[in-house]
């Protein structure tokens, strides 16, 4: 799934200085302390420690099965963790439904397979949660939705159904849908890996734009061009552990761990 890096490499080179230009506040957005998770007896995540500051943009990479998706999903309480502590925006994630609700409305999530609701129009997809969760009046919700649809450059598709859109368009709708909840943090789980090359570009462009506006982002992706261009930090995971993390420049040019080197040689040597 790492065939398209070359497409972005040109852009990435141009903008490689950009990340430092975006400000990172000192405020802590996500704090994960000593978090462990098991599936049955299988230890998927082991002693994860991670602090994300507001405005930080973190790219997570690693071989398949290393637990990247699981980590992301734990932050969103889509999976339970069994040990350790996750604090999002000051709220400790517990099994208390109120906390989970609060955290979920702070955190937007974007899936590999978009998961748009096929029975609703694009606009309805975007207004559903604001209306029913945030209790925003419909009109207002629609305005917001159109705003974000314009932002992802598909306002003209608002009344179509997801099935009528291309993959890239669908993924951009998915991003817009998350944004409509005005989250302070966005999680992306391989948002481009189900897409054709041309469409990848559309989606990455949208994400870059978002990054430039200072959104806190955690992004599982193997688009190294994207990582170089926007990430403050790249995290490499293997076997449920954070093996290495560093600034993108240092990470790509000078990986320290052997595993990271091996991994990078595989995906870049392509």
């Amino acid at each position, binding site marked *: 799934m790492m065939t398209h890096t070359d497409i972005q490499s040109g852009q990435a080179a141009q903008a490689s200085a950009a990340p430092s230009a975006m400000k990172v506040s000192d405020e802590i957005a996500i704090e994960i*302390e*000593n978090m462990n998770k*098991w599936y*049955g*007896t*299988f*230890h998927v995540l*082991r*002693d994860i*420690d*991670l*602090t994300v500051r507001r405005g930080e943009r973190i790219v997570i990479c690693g071989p398949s099965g290393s637990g990247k998706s699981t980590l992301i999903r734990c932050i969103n309480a889509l999976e339970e963790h*069994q*040990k350790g502590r996750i604090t999002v925006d000051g709220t400790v994630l517990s099994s208390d439904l109120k906390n989970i609700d609060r955290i979920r409305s702070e955190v937007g999530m974007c899936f590999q397979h978009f998961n748009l609701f096929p029975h609703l129009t694009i606009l309805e997809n975007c207004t559903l949660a604001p209306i029913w969760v945030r209790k925003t009046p419909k009109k207002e919700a629609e305005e917001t939705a159109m705003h974000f649809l314009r932002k992802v450059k598909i306002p003209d598709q608002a009344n179509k159904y997801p099935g009528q859109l291309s993959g890239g368009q669908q993924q951009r709708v998915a991003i817009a849908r998350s944004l409509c909840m005005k989250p302070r943090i966005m999680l992306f789980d391989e948002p481009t890996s189900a897409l054709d090359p041309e469409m990848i570009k559309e989606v990455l462009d949208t994400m870059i734009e978002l990054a430039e506006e200072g959104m806190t982002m955690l992004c599982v992706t193997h688009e190294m061009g994207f990582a170089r261009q926007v990430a*403050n*930090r790249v995290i490499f995971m293997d*076997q449920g*552990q*954070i*093996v*290495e*993390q*560093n*600034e993108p420049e*240092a990470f790509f040019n000078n990986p*320290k*761990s052997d595993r990271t080197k091996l991994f990078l040689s595989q995906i870049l040597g392509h």
Partner: protein
Amino acid sequence: MSDTHSESISFVRESFLPEVPPPAAEAGPVKWLRANLFSGAVNSVMTLLALALLIYILWGFLPWLLGGNWTASNIRECREIFQGSGAGCFAVLTERWNQLLFGFSYPPSEYWRPTLSLLLLAVVIAPVLFSHLPRWLLIVTALYPFTAYWLIWGGTIFTPVMALAGVIAGYFAYRRAVERGFAVGLLAGLVVALFVWWLGGLAAASEPDSLALERVPSRDMGGFMLNMILGVVCVSLSLPIGILLALGRQSSLPIVKWICVVFIEFIRGVPLITLLFVANVVLAYFLPPGTNFDLILRVIIMITMFASAYIAEVIRGGLAALPRGQYEAADSLGLDYAQAMRLIILPQALKISIPGIVNVAVGLFKDTTLVSIISMFDLVGMIRGPILASTDWNGVYWELFGFAALLFFVVCYGISQYSQWLERKLATDHR
């Protein structure tokens, strides 16, 4: 463990953490109980309710089952033994098992014959169901109908042997003549087969007793055996008819298509019981005067028609699932219609349709109990008729109905589990 510093984000793990087992509360039976039975207030209540229901049912059921009597010779004796304790009088099963399974006229000394046929069926069906068995076993399967006929109905062995000979001769004739076209081949095959059958009929009639098993007329079939016979025979017969109907319905020839559509929709639109009424009370009026089919045969005809309409719809689904390209590729290679269907389209369409066909078969097998409504003594008819009406056993419903339900459940559940297994296999197979 926190190696991340706010100043320098760079971090490299030197030592790898071992995999450790989950904390006690997160594993083992406690965790399982919590996750699966008591994960919330509502869930706990539901668990308790379900438990209460189960206990209630078992409370009534277990004493009935375990305390039951298997040896009494009639219901009065049972009642005397139980003194109103409400245990089951299973003696009816020990007493009447042969009637329940074989009907009351099948000669008891010959019970081994249908039993053997059933066992054989389980063996010969295997190559059809399990595709990894060697293909030559299919020949054994093809021989089965003749063997089973001989075993169940008896008579001289010449009848099935000559029938088989006719089929084989017809097949070879077909092979020889098919060069000139499918229709010619079919015709040649039919003519030769009919000729051999005619000869064979003479031969069998002249030697009615050589190598003969005791002859048992259809009317003497009863009990669960009758359900099995009806189910197996009708499903097997309805397969080829269903295929033809499905092809007809897909045909581009409007009249052929129209005939098939009307037939299929008509049959699917009426309840089986009305078709059985037709078999029972009306069909005789439509047959040439003097022909006198027995009821079983008439019922087989109607149930086969019924089943073939449903199977046709299943196969139509399979045909529709094939991409157009398969038809076109066959055309462009110069295969004619019959060849394309036989070699390319049907093998694929049938494979897709197997789970659906199995479902129809299970449904049909269950529906064979309806013949009891037209006073045939299948398993249900046997219970409702002679057994419940007899002085000895009138009043033992639960044991009898429970037994019938159990028999059907075992068979149908087995088949449907198999079909699900097959569906899973088809889904993962390399096409």
